[in-house]
């Protein structure tokens, strides 16, 4: 049970890698990359979880409570922004390439090889 979050982390990573390794469509590739990246979010959040912990906000509820780690949440937030922006750029590249060569297949005619 304790290993479950970490198993999911590894699963997401491997599935994402598999998606990229076998992709024949750039849009699919971007999604697969995002799946792989979500393993990073999950790892950070799992690492910062504390049993019975609540959101690290004191405000409305007085008294001492156990709170989960706010630092990893901030790191995850940063990483989500990074993932989203990279996806936007990748989609822009894929869209222009589709217009240029009429295909979304990254395997068809790499312009440079060797």
């Amino acid at each position, binding site marked *: 049970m304790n290993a479950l979050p970490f198993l999911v982390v590894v699963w997401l990573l491997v599935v994402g890698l598999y998606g990229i390794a076998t992709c024949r469509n750039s849009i699919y590739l971007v999604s697969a990359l995002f799946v792989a990246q979500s393993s990073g979010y999950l790892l950070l959040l799992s690492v910062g979880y504390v049993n019975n912990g609540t959101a690290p906000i004191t405000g409305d509820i007085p008294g001492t409570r156990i709170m989960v780690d706010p630092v990893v949440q901030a790191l995850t937030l940063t990483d989500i922004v990074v993932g989203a922006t990279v996806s936007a750029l990748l989609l822009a590249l894929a869209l*222009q390439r589709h217009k240029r060569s009429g295909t979304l297949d990254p395997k068809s005619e790499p312009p440079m090889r060797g």
Partner: protein
Amino acid sequence: MNDRLRNTLFALAAALLAGCLVAAFTSLPTFGRQSGAYRALVLESMEPMRHAQQAVAAVTFDYRGFDTLAEEFILFAAVAGGLLLLRRQEDEETREPTDQAPDRAGIVAAPAVLGLGVVMFPFTLLLGIYVVLHGHLTPGGGFQGGVLVATAFYYVYLSGEYGDLLKIKRDHLASHLEAAGAMSYAMIGALPLLSDYHYMRNLFPLGVSGELLSTGTLPLLNTAVGIEVASAFVLLIAAFLRQVLVIRREKKS
């Protein structure tokens, strides 16, 4: 590599990698029993030192505010890059958006869709602004609220009134707001330099815990980020829309 070799190689390597990672992860401290020094110090010091009640916002904009500066500029770079990549090329021209289906006369949004858009737009906008401004008190903040504000403008697109969205380009107000948001974050961080403090020091009055104007620079930074994020997403969606709807390659004669 042919497909079979690639798949075999990948299967072997991925199985090996997965095994190693599982071995490493499972020898971490037991799930749910972490007691990191960082967490304890932040939770303990944020209220007395910064009158802050929302630890994630305190970490994002105060303890590790410099990370967030770079993060904001990652978004800024992505917008500059996205607009660069999605520019109209020389052999392309812009045309009026036309309906791709031949059996329809023009683009008319159904009244229900239009109505929903009209209703949702102000509420989403308001919610977004609320989330930005209360980022240091409740879950949310500049990034989340900024995305909500941008979502409000997507309702405009969904309800079929995208003519205005298509006009949002580099010299549009949204673009200036975006740059202004990014610049103000960098400048707010630089203000302490004038009195010989370090960059990003939280110098503003801390106020009363839990009030809107408290925790010093946090609300200001949240607002700067909110403006940046909202206009960044509007700019990006407009650039993608232009590519799909109005930019067409000239027919080669």
